[in-house]
């Protein structure tokens, strides 16, 4: 099935319009990917399916209604909302950075909270089991905990 789609897409479209263009999200959706841990099973496969057949469904950026995301597609709001947006939309990277004690998401959150990034990273790593109690962890809980750790 996937092969057929791929091939028909490649062939049909290439035949008529091999195109350097790629329409991603002209309407300003947000919250792509990285959401598997929020309990929304199937979002990534869904997004992937759309991407794979992107030539047919050029509205990859579906608005998923993430709480930290602005309808205009902008990074907006106060500190807490921004930290939530970063964690929620970069969950898989944040989890890895927290376990390693450093990384781009830690740097970003440290910047938002105006704390030292290395210190925040060390705290996140030491308290990894506290942050990620089980695999059903919620972004909101994580945000509250990381803000608490940052101030500790």
């Amino acid at each position, binding site marked *: 099935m996937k092969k057929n789609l791929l*091939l028909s897409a490649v062939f049909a479209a290439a035949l008529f319009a091999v*195109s*350097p263009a790629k329409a991603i999200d002209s309407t300003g959706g*947000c919250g792509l990917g990285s959401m*598997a841990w929020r309990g929304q099973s199937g979002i990534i496969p869904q997004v992937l399916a759309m991407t*794979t057949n992107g*030539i047919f469904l050029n509205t990859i950026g579906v608005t998923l209604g993430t709480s930290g995301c602005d309808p205009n597609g902008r990074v907006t709001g106060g500190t807490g909302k*921004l930290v939530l947006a970063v964690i929620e939309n970069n969950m898989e990277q944040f989890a890895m950075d927290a*376990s390693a004690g450093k990384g*781009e998401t830690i740097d970003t959150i440290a910047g938002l909270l105006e704390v030292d990034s290395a210190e925040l990273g060390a705290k996140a790593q030491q308290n990894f089991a506290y942050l990620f109690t089980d695999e059903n962890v919620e972004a909101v809980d994580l945000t509250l905990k990381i803000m608490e750790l940052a101030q500790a």
Partner: protein
Amino acid sequence: MRWLFLFFLTVGALFISNFEAQADVSETVRDEALNQGWLNLLHYQKNGDAYLSFVENDEFFLSSNGRANPKEEFVSAVRIFNQSGNQEKCAFPARFLYLQRKGLVNGSLDDCKDYQKFLADVQPKSVTMLFTNAYMSNPSSLFGHTLFRIDTNRKGTQLLAHGANFGADTGDETGVLYALKGLWGGYYGTFGIKPYYDVINLYNNIENRDIWEYELNLSDAELELFTAHMWEMQRAKIRYYFLSRNCSYVLLLMLDAVRPDLQISQRFGGYTVPLATLKAVNEIPDFVKNVNYRPSRQSKLKYRAEQMNARQYDTFIDIIHDNKIDLSSLNEEEQADVLETAYQYVQYKYVDGDLELADYRKKSLKLLMARSKIANQRQYFDELKKGENPVDAHKAKQFALMFGNRNGENFQEISFKPVYNSLLDDSYGLLFGAEINLLDGKLRHYDSRDKWVLQELNLLSIKSLAGADAMFAPLSYDIKFGYRELFDARAGDDSGAMVLETGVGQSYALTKNTLLYAMSVPNVAYGGGLYDNGYLGIGFKGGVYYNSGKIRLNLNAMQNFTTSDTARGQTYQVEGAYGLTRDVMLYAGYKMFNSDYHDDEEFGLGIKVNF
């Protein structure tokens, strides 16, 4: 918002008509209105003595003839922006800034609430041009993609910056209609903005495409104008042509708008390939001040696996294939790297659709829990930092000369292709094993016949040899469609035919530079001069592909089973190229077709030049 817009537009139009009746437009104003800066900011194109803006929607203009009349639009803008309390300037802050800098309007943008909110969210620091490399699973992404990033002044990182992408708004249309509309300008494109972390997630993590970041050297005044212009361009509708006025072309229009003497868009407009626009931008002296590489998840995984020692690699494979985590043979630093790599692999598999959610979560957490217990902050391996800058890839057009012999007959051949990349080109900076050619043709002269024949004219030829290894199992494919002088085994002579070949199979990465591939190749040909007028066939092809940069080799053999005797038989082919420079290569090829009737054998030597 929309009705507000229309309201102001109506009010504005009333003022304009009133004004124009009594206007005494001075020479200076006339000159200013045809100044390149003003023309570029509204994206006017000159055609003879007439002007027309690329932007088609009326809301983008302040005067009723604005789209076709830069002077009238200029006069209206000056007039309206000078009225106290006007809100039109808030919809067109770049135009306001432009006129303000000319000393033609008073006031400020401070009372523009929405625009100030936009600035507060975006906090512009600089502008970066982004290039994402080819994505072979989507025909509309074969040539890569360009977009902007408005870098942020926020503390922390550029994750909180904003990507600004020009994309076609194609709705739900599909297939041929979609393709035709796209080709002939049936869609409108607009700019969309979203957080940079979403851009990263889409390209790096979902589509596994590398992102290249080119920070542009804009002055503060240019940055201010760019940001203001991006605000207005979010509502501008420009007709979208897939091949010419596409995403990368409109990006050049944006650059021309903030620095009018660049006139970089003028150099494109026929066929616009994103990589060519990127090269043009990089060739502007002192214009790109920083280059940063953001490898895709797949690139990172490959790099990390390559760097592992044997014990690490075995442990890693045990984890990802057998779900067995036994780290006992490794020291702590080695463990940390294996756990991180395995975690990233789990993310990859999940996005690829090969893992159930519950399983994915369990595996992810288990690996990270183990990783978090290793306090060592030093990473055993550096993350992949340097890649092959696509700006340094070979040029897109190619001209070639070849001298050869076919079945005892000497020939000379001239060939040309307008785009883009073939397996025998240097793969530096481009996707390994990918070939994308459109409209390439070959003219041949046989000494004994003393005339030139059109040997081949391909509509398209697209290949993707993507090597499978212990981590990845991508599909390989090979599609070729076009006209060619086809050897008819029954007749023992050439005859013109349309030929379509569509191979699908797998490649195996023997080394980093070497692929073994096998494909089944359904093929069909039609030509009035062929025995039986054509055939349907299924071929089985196997081959080896090698590309070390300087030396490129492709050898393969195919057994074709066809409905007609025309093409039934075996084909053996060897092609090699040696790069004198990245754009000049010596070429040698040999091909043998073996059938029950007549055989066909040829070899040739030549030179190919990219330009």
